[in-house]
């Protein structure tokens, strides 16, 4: 009985702990992704796209579509789109920033976390 209790406590602690780490991680990634999204020398995505759900940034770019409901898109599709948009659209004007090593795969993943989080239906 003692043992079961101990195990339960440990299990509980680990889940709680990893859960909070995960939440902190996620918040940091959203923040980082947002920065990459709006910064000219990084993703500069804002140049062409407006985003649903983030009213604090200017929504003026019309070269690309408004990014909405990104949480309903498969994560892998989004990562691929941002790594190399030419794969799904050979004549797109969207720059292949990942393919050309302008931003790293980790940065692309952060942008995707940001997009999926911010455009979620609230």
């Amino acid at each position, binding site marked *: 009985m003692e043992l079961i209790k101990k195990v339960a406590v440990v299990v509980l602690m680990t889940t709680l702990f990893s859960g909070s780490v995960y939440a902190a991680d996620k918040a940091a990634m959203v923040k980082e992704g947002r920065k990459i999204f709006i910064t000219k020398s990084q993703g500069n995505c804002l140049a062409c796209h407006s985003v649903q759900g983030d009213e604090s940034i200017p929504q003026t*770019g*019309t070269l*690309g*579509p408004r990014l909405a409901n990104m949480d309903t898109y498969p994560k892998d599709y989004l990562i691929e789109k941002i790594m190399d948009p030419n794969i799904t659209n050979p004549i797109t004007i969207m*720059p*292949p*920033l990942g393919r050309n090593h*302008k931003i790293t795969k980790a940065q692309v993943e952060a942008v995707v976390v940001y997009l999926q989080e911010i455009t979620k239906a609230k």
Partner: protein
Amino acid sequence: MLGKIIKASTIVLILSGVLYAGNFNKQAEIDRLAMQKYFLKKFEDPIKNQNEYFPYVEEAELKKNYIFPLKLEDFVNGTAAWYKPTRDQMEEINEFAPYEIPLDEGRELWVKAFANGKTYSSCFPDAAIKQNFPYYDTKRDEVVTIGQAINECRVGNGEKALKYGKGDIAKLAAYVAFESRGKAINVQIPNAKAAMAYEAGKKMFYKQRGYFYMNCTECHVQGAGKKIRQEALSPILGSVSHFPVYRIKWGGLGTLQRRLVACVRDTGSEKPKMQSKSAKELEYFVTYMSNGLILNGPDTRK
């Protein structure tokens, strides 16, 4: 028999040569008319043709801020031709046009004597010559821009060449532009080598390159009439008619070469030198596209 074939084919060759002579702008004319057609259609009715030309612009924005239909002669106004907020802003600024002072300085420079007593008029008896620039110099086999011609005049008269892009060269170019107001752009393609220079400029315009793998069309053909960040993008058709421009961002006059090399950098590639072979060929192509449009420089830009 062989002799006959050679003779016949020589005749054909000569004939086609004759037919071709004076027709070195054949391809350029096809390109120019196609460009005009595209832009006239695009700005004929952006609301009706939204799916084709403006898929990501909201209808409310099209209704509120877009000016249409555009006529060919409207394109000399760049972004102000189609975008109401820019047009209003430009009209307001040009009530006291910021280019007036540097234009006056350009006029003074034009008549001021060099050390040898001569002036620019010794090279250019008439200052209303902008419509012919850039031109292809068939003796030297190169494209010559107005800035280059001004500097060659200086050097020929024992003066130092001016720095390109801004300052005195832009002021002098502004004076030439002002004197040429009302003339129709008339870039010529006199021979096969000139046609090759045109093709090189065209390739520069269309080739996707650099980090961003972009080309000029993505901002100034398909992209024209859309926005990148807060900047409303101008159609390439007519985009050269008003140079040099006083740009608020520059805080002074800048030449077309300056703008062009900055835009090449915007495609994510290495910035070419102003007046380099490739930068001049790009100017040659881009200016040819506006042939027939009326010069209205200098002007003001954001």
